């Protein structure tokens, strides 16, 4: 399995080599993606990938935590199993369904009801206003992040629920015995005990958010420009590769650039995972 993984990375790197050779390190930072002039840069799609994934995590984690907290501590025992199964079933919905739902239901709703209001009221504010400006297309980075958040929610929630359930009752009971409230037990006993697994669950979600293709392609707006507004269109690595692959000829610089993008996505996922592991370790020592 590891050999296969290694071979895949090497294969991607070799295939993408012409692109790295042609553009150098600037391939990673350049925001130019112009197939007509054969100028390719990964900047826009890397930016879009990271922004949507991080935003999706920011939206999904509090919700997932709430769901898991409710299911393990607050919900009446008879409701826990069916509700938990329902959450897990959400993870089985194919991503194309989320994409279509996002395009036909969420994007129009955003375009007609939510975005005009936000652009008018928050877009004018200083400091954060620039994040919420532009035409209300309905699609864009924010919509993509929103759909991604819904997609990764069940993964994170299911992991959290499972690990919260595994906290030995003795720990919780002793805390309750000292007069702690449910929230205090969660904060002081359950969370510290399960921290590693909780972060693991979040990483699982982040991994899926980074690589998700179909659902993102539908709603991100697919523009190779960096827009500071969250409502502006953007692109992610996975979505760009999927869209352009069919129209790139063998041996062309474009195909090499797409494969190089795949290599970068691979690295990105690895760096994210490695960083999280590292952060986690240093926290455990303290």
């Amino acid at each position, binding site marked *: 399995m590891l050999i296969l993984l290694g071979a895949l990375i090497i294969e991607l790197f070799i295939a993408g080599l012409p692109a790295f050779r042609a553009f150098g390190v600037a391939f990673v930072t350049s925001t130019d993606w112009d*197939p007509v002039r054969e100028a390719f840069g990964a900047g826009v799609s890397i930016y879009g990938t990271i922004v949507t994934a991080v935003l999706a995590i920011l939206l999904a984690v509090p919700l997932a935590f709430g769901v898991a907290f409710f299911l393990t501590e607050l919900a009446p025992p008879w409701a826990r199993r069916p509700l938990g199964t329902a959450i897990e079933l959400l993870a089985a919905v194919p991503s194309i369904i989320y994409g279509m739902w996002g395009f036909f239901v969420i*994007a129009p709703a955003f375009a007609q009801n939510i975005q005009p209001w936000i652009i008018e009221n928050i877009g004018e504010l200083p400091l954060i206003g620039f994040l919420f400006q532009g035409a209300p297309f*309905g699609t864009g980075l924010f919509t993509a992040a929103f759909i991604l958040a819904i997609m990764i929610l069940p993964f994170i929630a299911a992991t959290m629920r499972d690990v919260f359930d595994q906290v030995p009752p003795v720990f919780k009971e002793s805390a309750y015995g000292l007069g702690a409230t449910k929230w205090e037990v969660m904060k002081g006993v359950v969370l510290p005990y399960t921290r590693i697994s909780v972060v693991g669950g979040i990483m699982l979600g982040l991994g899926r958010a980074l690589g998700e293709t179909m659902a993102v392609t539908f709603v991100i707006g697919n523009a190779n420009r960096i827009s500071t507004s969250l409502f502006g269109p953007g692109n992610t690595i996975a979505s760009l590769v999927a869209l352009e692959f069919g129209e790139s000829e063998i041996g062309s610089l474009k195909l090499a650039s797409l494969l190089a993008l795949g290599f970068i996505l691979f690295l990105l996922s690895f760096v994210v995972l490695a960083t999280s592991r590292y952060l986690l370790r240093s926290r455990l020592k303290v």
Partner: protein
Amino acid sequence: MDRRSFLLGASAALTLPAFGAHAQAAQITGAGATFPNPIYQKWAEAARGATGIQVNYQSVGSGAGINQIRNRTVDFGATDAPLNAEQLATGNLLQFPTVMGSLVAIVNIPGIAEDQLKLTGPLLADIYLGKITRWNDPQIVALNPGLTLPSLAIAPAYRADGSGTTFVWVSYLSAVSPEFKEKVGVGTSVRFPAGTGARGNEGVAGTVRNVRGAIGYVENAYAITNKLVTTQIRNKAGNFVKPEHKSFMAAASAADWSVPGFAANVIDQAGADSWPIVAPTFILLPTNPTDAARSANVRRFFDWCFTNGSKLAEELEYIPLPESVHNAVRGAWRQSFGA
């Protein structure tokens, strides 16, 4: 006779002749452009009975079609963007057109109905360059004295996936606007300075339907079946034409096909009634086929389509090629493959 053996015998009698015909059918395979896929499938179905040739066409996209025919993994390739003479020579390929299609602009402006809005090519180029940003821009208002245009932001939508549709659209915009040609250029996927991308014709149509003030471009067949609001466009002769059968046919007959690889420039044709944005789609056939019999069957199939397929093409809102072009293609076959 017990019931079971009777049923078995009956089913064998039913399936045997069909199986026999299936085994005899000559198979040919093709891959490429998605735009002509509906008509190729229709032709394949109709020609199967008449010619005994079974066509297996995969619509994987023009670029992939070119790759597959270069590697000779299929009997013929199909592409919307024609290859130039040099590319054809190095690949040992013969290129010929089969059918034409047209692109239309679709809009979503409150109070504007089908074919009411009048636009020009340079205006469309400026819209896609992000230079004209509101529907009540003086230039648009001047063209449409009878219409009340709202002060609404223009939201251009384009194909995000590499596609022959985009190739034809930017070919047209580049032909009418030097600035567009310089800043964006021509290709199956380009970098549009403004607007939002969506996947496929259905994605562009969906975006235009969702967003007030949106404009997009789709194939005419798609606009008709989905009842999208199209516009008039001014042609080279200076007349505003509606996207309809008459103007498409006028464009097809006005084109000059006597160029290498039949790569006729049919964009923005002269002629009083010509619709400016039409484009042929092409077949790539190896001139040094690995299997001569299969190559002959490909030509037999398209010969049948030229003779009998025009009505089917019109039913699916494609534009059949003029008879003179059909004969010129047959001449090119004779030249490359003998009789």
